[in-house]
């Protein structure tokens, strides 16, 4: 076979392979992607919505707030989920607040420390303080657990607690709320931060500056670590996306929110 024929065949194959790459999604399918904090609640909303509207499919994916915003910008999903405020270069997206959530600082249930000052939490996460003894805890080195940089939960934590100080590089980094909770639940010397709505009996949420971590204290303002849950989209949402968001913002959707442990928007 001649060299030209080889080249032609090679090109033909490449073209054939590339022609197979095509996007496209049906109008009856909606994809949400982003924050792992919002993900379990979005799952719940999706479940109820699909019961009400058979024939429509709502898919919920994780990946973290920044990943969700990127996916929404690139068109990979219709609705992005973010558990932090949008940055300047993301401001061209339409954002809708669907719930509010507290940020909980969690420790192992066996840890005698019940509360900390926010300044102390900042010291711990910046790597300044090494042992629990400084707070009346056991004589152990503190295992600091944080989230990956694209996490909305981490973004909110950075903004509300750390300010300009970096979270130190020796902190264990995990990629979802669930994993952080798992690690803290099994390590008596660990401390981490997760969505308040995801705190369960496996971990204990610390009181901050004297205020216990519960909805009442968030509403009266004494517990100050609160962040919005946002749904973002390119331009105003239309079609199935609009219907889903209307459902989430309706009384029924917001009651679901309260039942699951989040704070409604009103």
């Amino acid at each position: 076979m001649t060299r030209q024929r080889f080249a032609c065949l090679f090109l033909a194959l490449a073209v054939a392979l590339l022609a197979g790459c095509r996007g496209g999604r049906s109008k009856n399918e909606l994809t949400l992607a982003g924050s792992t904090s919002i993900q379990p609640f979005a799952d719940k909303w999706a479940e109820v919505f699909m019961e009400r509207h058979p024939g429509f499919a709502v898919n919920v994916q994780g990946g973290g707030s920044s990943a969700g915003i990127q996916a929404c910008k690139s068109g990979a999903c219709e609705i992005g989920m973010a558990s932090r405020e949008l940055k300047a270069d993301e401001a061209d997206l339409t954002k809708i607040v669907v719930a509010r959530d507290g940020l909980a600082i969690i420790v192992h249930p066996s840890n005698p420390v019940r509360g900390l000052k926010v300044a102390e939490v900042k010291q711990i996460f910046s790597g300044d303080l090494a042992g629990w003894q400084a707070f009346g805890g056991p004589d152990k080195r503190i295992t600091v657990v944080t989230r990956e940089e694209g996490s909305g939960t981490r973004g909110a934590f950075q903004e509300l607690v750390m300010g300009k100080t970096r979270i130190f590089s020796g902190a264990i980094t995990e990629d979802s709320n669930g994993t952080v909770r798992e690690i803290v639940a099994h390590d008596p010397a660990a401390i981490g931060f997760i969505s308040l709505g995801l705190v369960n009996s496996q971990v204990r949420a610390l009181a901050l500056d004297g205020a216990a971590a519960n909805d009442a204290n968030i509403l009266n303002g004494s517990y100050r670590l609160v962040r919005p849950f946002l749904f973002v989209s390119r331009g105003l949402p239309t079609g199935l996306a609009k219907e889903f968001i209307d459902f989430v913002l309706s009384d029924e959707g917001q009651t679901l929110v309260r039942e699951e442990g989040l704070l409604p928007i009103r």
Partner: protein
Amino acid sequence: MDGTAKKRSGTRLERNDRLVRLALLVVAFSAVSVLLVITVFIVGQGTPIMFRYGLKSFLTGTRWYPSENLFGLWPMIVGSLYVTVGAMVLGVPFGLSCAIVLTEFSSKRLRSIIKPVIELLAGIPSVVYGFMGVVILVPFIRETFGGPGLSVLAAAIILGIMILPTIISISVDALQAVPPTYREGSIALGATKWQTVKMVLLPAARSGIIASIILGMGRAIGETMAVIMIAGNAAKVPGSLLDPVRTLTSNIALEMGYAAGEHRQALFATGVILFIIIMVLNTVANVTASRMKGAKK
């Protein structure tokens, strides 16, 4: 009549032969072209930032804070190295010993039990290894040795177990490929079985065993899922075996989902570094193997 019939079937056979050869060539080309496309893409995306940021500060910088445009890869390079060396320290002695036992010191029945079990080990997905690590190994390390449990040690142990099937099966093939006359000759000269293994068989199977070690090393360096689950992913050079560590592969996997702009290019650059490390390792090992082969002859 006879002549024309023979000519027709000859042409048909030749044509079929050519078609089959063509089909195989097309398949081979597509595999190679995929590799080429990947390489070109990664190198294209990753090299500009390495030179823009400064190659030295990229490779030796100790701070990785993408949100502040700080891209120092050194902690991850050291992390990959520590974890791979740890995996080799565990995997090679155990794997090689197992291969020797399987070929020289076990009955046919024992072999028929152990070999399938090892092949089963190879089929376990890495997520399951990671899961076992998190549930069993990490708490054990934390309670026995201290520290968070998510550590270099945990990653080295799990990776060591993961590369065992690779090292064992290729070493077994290498040992079985040694001609039986070597064994017989050695025993005839009065050597014990272990002396035979140590001084005759292992040197004879050396290139195959080295090949198995290279492949195991390649697997250890490239493993991502299990390592993310058990190594702790702290972007800091580990001070001890019990400190958390982040490897080059984990770095890419943790951040690729949301990285944009320069951050994304930095991750591609991490991919380029990985490519280079693996190529260097493979070349060094291949040269060593061929040199040994040459020296033996």
